[in-house]
């Protein structure tokens, strides 16, 4: 059995609630209902899950999903050994065994056939059949499954199946309001509120351009980066260009507009 302690969240992560999501999550956890967190990139989905794991004092196992991920990457596989083969639990199996919260980040990135393996864990059965090993694993009473997904950039091909979607309770996250986001930036980076408010203003300008050449606006995460750079002594405009504009676009017109927004905000 793996070391449970390594999966624990020891320090309280900073999380600024936007609504009632903390209480709602606690209720879902009490009933061990699977949870889905939706929202654009960098709006605090992962931070929220981490925070809840800390608050509930449960281990958290995070899996970043990608296109090449197969079912056995989640469940586990036989490895070749000098003496034959040896079974190695995947992260999902480990979580089900030790009673952790298993967090599948960006679930749509995984192939659709992969996501189906989570189905038996997410309904009344709460079991995980390890068919290769010939074991039917009953989940630990503390086990809970959380998935996150970003509805923004998904194409027709990248959407969750209805059968998967309908196994989850869901939270819809979005970028916080300007006021709240300012507070978040200030708390996260320790910069003064006025500077943070200006950064947020640039963020909002970019979010207004979403769909007009930008796939996604400037995330709270990037705003935090910018504030961090400024705190490190970088000139505000340079920091914004580096952290806010250059990462999100290669389009010269958008870059020019956002650069102007920076000049307009930091006079």
């Amino acid at each position: 059995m793996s070391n449970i302690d390594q999966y624990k969240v020891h320090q309280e992560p900073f999380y600024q609630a936007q609504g009632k999501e903390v209480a709602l999550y606690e209720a879902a956890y009490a009933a061990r209902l699977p949870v889905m967190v939706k929202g654009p990139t960098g709006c605090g989905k992962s931070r929220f899950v981490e925070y809840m794991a800390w608050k509930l004092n449960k281990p958290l196992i995070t899996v970043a999903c990608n296109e090449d991920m197969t079912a056995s990457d989640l469940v586990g596989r036989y490895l070749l050994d000098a003496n034959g083969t040896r079974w190695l639990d995947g992260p999902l199996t480990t979580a089900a065994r030790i009673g952790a919260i298993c967090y599948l980040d960006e679930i749509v990135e995984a192939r659709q056939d992969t996501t189906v393996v989570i189905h038996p864990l997410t309904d009344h059965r709460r079991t995980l059949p390890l068919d290769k090993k010939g074991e039917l694993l009953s989940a630990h009473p503390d086990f809970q499954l959380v998935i996150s997904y970003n509805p923004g950039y998904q194409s027709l091909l990248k959407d969750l199946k209805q059968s998967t979607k309908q196994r989850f309770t869901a939270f819809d996250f979005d970028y916080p309001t300007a006021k709240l986001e300012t507070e978040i930036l200030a708390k996260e980076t320790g910069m003064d509120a006025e500077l943070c408010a200006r950064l947020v203003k640039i963020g909002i300008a970019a979010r207004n351009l979403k769909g007009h050449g930008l796939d996604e606006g400037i995330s709270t995460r990037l705003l935090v980066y910018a504030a961090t750079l400024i705190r490190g002594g970088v000139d505000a405009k340079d920091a914004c260009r580096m952290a806010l504009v250059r990462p999100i676009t290669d389009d010269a017109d958008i870059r020019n507009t956002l650069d102007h927004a920076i000049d307009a905000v930091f006079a």
Partner: protein
Amino acid sequence: MKTIPEDLQVYWEQLACGFPRVAEVFPDCMREALTILSNEGIAAYLEYASFLGKMGRGAEPILIFLEEWPRVAKILGEDALPAIAECIRRLYKSPNGKAIVPFLQSLPSVARRLPTKPQMQEYLTLVLDFMESTTGSIHGIHQTFASPALPVLFKQINVLLGQLSLAGLKKWVDYGARFYSDHPERQIDYFSLQSADSRAVLQRERHGTLLMDNERKLDMYLRGLWQIDEQLIPYSTLYDELRKPVPYYDKLGIRVPDVYSDFVVPSPSGITSDLAAVVSQPSRMASSSIRGAGGRNGEFAEYALRPSSGSGLPAGTRTASEGDEPQRVAGIDRYRAVLAHIVAHRRWSTPIFADNFSPFQRMAVEFLEDSRVEYLAMQEYPGLRRIFTGLHPVPEENACDPEKESGVRHRLAMLSRALLDPHHPYKNEHIVEFTRRFHELMQQGNAGTQQMAELAISFVAKTRVQSDQLARTHFKDTEIDYRDDNRHLWKFYEQSDDEEAFEEHRPRAADEEIRGLPPRHYHEWDYNSQSYRPDWVSVYEGLHPSGNAADIDRLLAKHAALAKRLKKLLDLLKPQDKVRIRYQEEGSELDLDVALRSLIDYKGGSAPDPRINMSHRNDGRSIAVMVLLDLSESLNEKAAGSEQTILELSQEAVSLLAWAVQQLGDPFAIAGFHSNTRHDVRYMHIKGYSEKWDDEVKGRLAAMEASYSTRMGAAMRHAAHYLDKQQADKKLMLILTDGEPADIDSKDGRILIEDARQAVKELDTQGIYAYCINLDPKADDYVKDIFGKQYTIIDKVAQLPEKLPALFISLTK
């Protein structure tokens, strides 16, 4: 005859001129010349004037020269005379003597625009080149006809140089000289800026920031920073020298000028050594030497000096490169200033009733309201202050003489500057007091348009002087060109009868009907100048007329055997959805064969192959096809060795091809084109992407007719416009033609070939693969130039029905 004063008699003799009109102006001109020119200059002046007088072109040349030269010499220097004299000599020797007078007349304004000798020399060369190329000759030996456009050009040169750089002017002139060299009337139209072409080329060459190049940026600016989505409608600044339209907005959108050049903030008219004065004019300090005293960012001093409360914001956030140059506001920023101002009005202004205000009061209200919305906009985006202060004029406090002219505008402009710029230079107690009152109001936070109106009326009452009634108004430095005309600010109790009722809309006549689609215009590539001719070709599109669909079915039946063979080929091409990829280190499944082999290797002690997985790949077919048919006259000829015309054979071939593509299920369209000069390129839809291969389509195909010529480039661009919208990995455009691109209005055969080649390049950048099927056995000469390697020549046209589908299949295999 006027007598010449004693002291000038000696010069008069040197001039040796008998025109009485010259004698009238001579003393004045001479006195002016004496103050400006050196002794040698005077000698040259008189000598050359004397030559002009004896040239046999009347008194006009010498008169103009005598009057204008001293001023020109002042700008260019006296030694510019030989070059100009040489130019006049060349004009004189050619049949263009009539152009000498306009040339001399235009000289002062040209000198003002091109104040250095090299520039002037370049201009003169341009003039002479132009003269050479437009002066006509018979039998190519002696030039006999005067250049029709040369005098016209001199008349327009002031406008042109105002809009164009010298390089731009050269391109504009070259363009006109090249395309209208053999058509005097059109040449004159072009050079007098009457023709659409002329204006289009001029627009393209203008210096400055063109709206059309930056529309997307500005749309994003509006959407991103101000959350509004508004149409930007350009108005031309080119032809309205007098009226000078200003930006405004109405229901249809925001009207902005079509071009803004960079705005250079004028340097201070006199730098005083008084430090206080310098500090109070911070934005004007670019050329002052006191900049070191923390002054470059003078206008930001307010912000920079504020305790930065731990934000770590460095005081000077400007980049160093702005150092010594005069302050500029880029064209794009001028647009942004206009938009910010207009958006601010939309957001914060409420219309008020105008009826009870006098014109002066209304003007004051407008100025204050403008200042208020800008104040609020700058609260939102402090960086706007830099642009606004750069663009806002700084009227000099004592520039207006209240005895002679009305200072109404001047006073309001000063107030407006003071409201905008905390370091304004004004001492006038009213200005200072009202600036304070304005800021107090704004700081209370709820001042609206109504409060501004009250403040404005009080300002008017306090500052009124008798001379405000004078007819002459002081205008200098009072026009704030980024502000709109404030038409939205006013509402009226009653429509007064002294204004024209702009708002009334005439009901649209019920019988106005829109017939057909408007033409689309396409550029055409001109290889001579390596540039596009803007909006040169008009393409009219429409549905091809319909015929009898059964004809096509009969054709298909005739080729049933061929169709059968094709069918076999097509079945092979049909996509198989899943393809297995073996030997993958990471894959979706274990490839058992390979894995076992690896395991054996491993157990046997040798290095195993780690690539034991396999995965699958979707092998869908995603090709969109456009078949473009040349329907020019030559298709009506009989094909060599066949009883059928090329048109009939094409018909058969295209029918078979369409049938084949239909079998494969690829989206495809068919269209035909022919042209009758650049003004009438017909583009006829035979099959659209959304249509099925049914009787309607077959009917159109059956009715195919051939006439007129082949302007290929425009048709390809238009077809690409449709193909581009298709969602497919690969886009294929098949062009079926029987000859080289040509049209009756194009004498240079090369032009349309080069244009088609350029069209192929454009297609390539759009991700469209153009492929030509040429039925002209002699096509080798040109088809390679156009299509590179992407072509096939079918020598035996009779084989076309068989070749075409086969070709398609092999292309898309």
